[in-house]
């Protein structure tokens, strides 16, 4: 595990989380270096989403430590966490039906300077421009996913948490999302990605952490993924 270090955007150590009485995370340890794309891989129910939610402060009951740019997040409410420069794109997308597509994009407040403008976003997702006036939930599954990603690009957050951004998307769109993630990395964003699809993950990420039953059981840099395919397949039960 990397030591505490200013080049690290996010350090998670001994993170525990509970839903009610069920203990989901049992001491997660991992770190995300600045400017990198890092994935959490793991089977269904391994606790990937829960990790994201714990970082964002959406899971109330959590213990251990989460440091973002050196600042402790455990104990802060999620709005304060967001203000520090973290943005979260949830697995279930969370599009607002009472707002139209454009209003959805404009909703999250800018927390830091340097976010994308509406034009830039429309450039990335022309489909969203076409459907701009329609009600948020009237989008198809894939459109909604695009909207969910587009929405957090405006905020200027430096760490993006993307939870299965390719789930339920057409292959073509998956490719596009890959391009977008690489583009974002190029702009200096740090990205924590949750994926089931490690083939896709391999095309964008710098390193991978493998999650199993609420703990990180292994990690490997992207360039070793070829050699470790067998091991990964075992972890993911492919």
């Amino acid at each position: 595990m990397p030591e505490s270090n200013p080049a690290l955007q996010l350090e998670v150590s001994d993170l525990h989380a509970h839903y009610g009485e069920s203990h989901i995370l049992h001491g997660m340890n991992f770190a995300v270096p600045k400017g990198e794309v890092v994935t959490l891989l793991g089977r269904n129910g391994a606790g990937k989403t829960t990790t994201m939610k714990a970082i964002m402060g959406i899971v109330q009951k959590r213990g251990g430590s989460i440091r973002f740019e050196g600042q402790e997040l455990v104990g802060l409410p999620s709005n304060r966490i967001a203000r520090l420069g973290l943005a979260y794109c949830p697995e279930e997308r969370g599009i607002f039906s009472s707002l139209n597509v454009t209003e959805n994009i404009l909703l999250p407040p800018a927390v830091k300077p340097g976010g994308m403008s509406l034009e830039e976003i429309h450039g990335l997702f022309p489909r969203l421009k076409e459907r701009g006036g329609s009600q948020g939930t009237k989008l198809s599954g894939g459109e909604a996913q695009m909207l969910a990603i587009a929405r957090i690009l405006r905020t200027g957050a430096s760490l993006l948490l993307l939870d299965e951004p390719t789930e339920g998307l057409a292959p073509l769109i998956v490719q596009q999302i890959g391009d977008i993630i690489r583009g974002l990395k190029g702009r200096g964003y740090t990205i924590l990605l949750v994926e089931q699809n490690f083939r896709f993950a391999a095309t964008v990420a710098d390193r991978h952490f493998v999650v199993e039953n609420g703990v990180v059981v292994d990690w490997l840099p992207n360039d070793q993924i070829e050699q470790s395919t067998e091991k990964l397949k075992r972890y993911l039960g492919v």
Partner: protein
Amino acid sequence: MGSDCIIETQNLCKDFKGFSAVVDVDLRLKPGTIHALIGPNGAGKTTCFNLITKFLVPTKGRIFFKGREITKLDPAQIARLGMVRSFQISAVFLGLTALENVRVALQRQLGTSFHFWRPEKSLEVLHERAHELLEAVGLGDYAQVPASELPYGRKRALEIATTLALDPEVLLLDEPMAGMGREDIGRIVALIKRVAKDRTILMVEHNLSVVADLSDYITVLHNGAILAEGTYQEVSNNSQVVEAYMGTGHA
């Protein structure tokens, strides 16, 4: 209408406040086949699905089931005809045990569902069949477990068992593999293959390897209209489809 089709739609259209989600779709399902509906996001697959199962009312067009027009029926009637659907997000009765989930589906055939004066014991005749169905989807050991405590993949399996309980002629599956791990996918694919023997299946699925593996026939939707139809081989070689949907990386 072709009498060899079990489900047929004619000029099916759906508008949402001026936006056409489905335009003039003529679907033809041959009995005993697995028919896949694919297409980019927003192509109108789920909408088509909802139209056929009457969870949405078509703006225009007609729907036939075994030659009989069903455009005017309501969702419950559709189910009684033998067309049963699953949902894009898993749909089980969380507070009931796995066994009870399946039993609820079986119990309609007894015709006693309004009998509030009959004891619960009267339902026990169904337990044998319910256990069979649970075994079939690999949930044999989970019969007494509340559905809420099942892991996601097993919930989907339970949902399929419940659907099969109605012994439907036509199964409509909306993204049955969404959110599933590989091992689960393998199991469900095998299951679908098994149950497809004497049934017709219409499914929406993005996982192309599953589609390739399972489907006999594919309809590609794009912008609400049919872009191409044919076997996986035919469709995946169609340049329009590759451009609009599959992308260059695949094929």
